[in-house]
């Protein structure tokens, strides 16, 4: 298994290098929306400006680290019938997707982390003072977030066996997550009802939760609760994924034949 993964990782690494420019453009992602949201909050509460700068820069960073694109890939592959190539191979197709995610996110981290460090030299608001334990918890939360988002995206992609517009379904989920994941506002600034929803639904653990750890907005009780809920969602997603995969293969009728 490890040998297989090394081969997959190398393959994906070479693939990534082939599209250097596209990768770079992609890395920046959609940064306008968080920046504008940041400006809005700085206007609402100027005294907290530095906190908002830190929060929304972290949103851009964490969002890239947990981003998932598999739904678009799967949608296209299932629709065009090329997905059959993967099904025929002895290794579950999800491993290709996992390897791809690992390679891209390692690159994102390797570039974005130094960028943050350099920016912090000039912008005091970006500096943070944390213990080693907090950093570990933050990284663990980012990993959980990446896994959650990946699973959700992959599940939606597999729905392509039944429906043709899975990207539209995923789009709706993305928009809901806009509020609940902390991209529009930090958890503490949301109206109480939305706060409740975001604590129990998976979206917050994809972006907002790691940031709350690094900014010390979450105390130890919040963290314990957060990790527990995120883990439960991962279990739910894994079970759902296995079940949909089995049912989907039965349903699958490759295009083109």
């Amino acid at each position: 298994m490890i040998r297989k993964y090394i081969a997959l990782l190398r393959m994906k690494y070479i693939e990534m290098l082939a599209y250097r420019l596209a990768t770079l453009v992609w890395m920046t992602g959609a940064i306008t929306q968080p920046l504008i949201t940041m400006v809005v909050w700085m206007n609402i509460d100027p005294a907290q400006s530095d906190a908002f700068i830190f929060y929304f820069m972290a949103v851009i960073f964490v969002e890239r680290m947990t981003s998932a694109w598999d739904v678009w890939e799967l949608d296209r592959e299932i629709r065009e019938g090329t997905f059959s190539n993967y099904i025929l191979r002895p290794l579950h197709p999800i491993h290709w997707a996992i390897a791809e995610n690992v390679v891209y996110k390692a690159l994102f981290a390797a570039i974005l982390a130094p960028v943050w460090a350099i920016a912090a030299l000039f912008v005091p608001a970006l500096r943070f003072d944390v213990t080693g334990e907090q950093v570990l918890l933050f990284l663990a939360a980012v990993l959980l977030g990446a896994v959650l988002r990946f699973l959700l995206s992959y599940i939606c992609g597999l729905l392509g066996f039944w429906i043709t517009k899975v990207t539209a379904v995923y789009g709706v989920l993305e928009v809901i997550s806009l509020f609940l994941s902390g991209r529009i506002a930090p958890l503490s600034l949301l109206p109480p009802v939305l706060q409740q929803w975001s604590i129990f639904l998976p979206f917050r653990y994809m972006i907002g939760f790691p940031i709350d750890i690094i900014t010390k907005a979450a105390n130890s009780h919040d963290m314990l609760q957060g990790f527990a809920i995120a883990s439960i969602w991962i279990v739910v997603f894994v079970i759902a994924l296995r079940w949909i995969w089995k049912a989907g293969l039965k349903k699958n009728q490759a295009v083109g034949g």
Partner: protein
Amino acid sequence: MESGIKEKPSGRWLSVRRYVRIFREFFRACFVEELEYRSEFLGNLISSFFGIGIAVLTVNIFFYQTDQLGGWTYADVLVLLGVFNTLRGMIDFALRPNMPRLLEHVRRGTLDYILTKPVDSMFYVSFRHLVFWRLIDVLLGLGVIGYGLIVKRYIPSLFDVLIFLITIAASFVLIYSLWMMLMTTSFWVIRIDDLSFIFDSFFETARFPIGMYRGLVRIVLTYVLPAAVITNMPALSLLGKWNMATAFIAVLLALVFLWLARRFWRFALRFYTSASS
């Protein structure tokens, strides 16, 4: 020859009428095309409603923590959002569908066929393809404007509406010019697949009051890439906070940018050397 000179004014009028007729023909052709995909209509309708609902909810979240944004009240921001949605609907209706096609024409060299048509090429490449269901966004935008005015309990005077119509027309010309200039760069940067991403990033800044931005960003958004003028001016007009000077500047700015876009298109065409052979 003599009569030709004499008839110039009426000749120009004739050509306006001719272009209106051509536009109507584009309209009809695209409408027929779209009727083929009737089943998608419901989905598009739902997604448009969903989109505007989310935008209003976002404004509500901000105003849960404050009662003004850059000097604008909740109702004012709703009117602004309505203007934003209306203009975005117009862009998605007429401009966005044409962008990828121009890139394609330049890459494959099929722009030849357009250049040889007895129609103005800039007109043709920017309006040939229309996506009708996006007009729903225009209607929803107008709806939000209406709702904002009701919340504010303000009935615009006839003059407010008049200035609003003038400034929003200027905004559309301005957007069209900026869009056209961006689209024209496809003669050089055919590798970048989605130039509209750049435009969206910029246009997104027009969603909120300009008073929100500070320092350099504000100057850029007022004078260089006039996002402020595009949405803020029509919204202010409708709320009765206009003055003749700024309305005049908006119209002037629109005309200047249109002229620039036109010049740029002409300039770019000189660099076009077809693709084949």
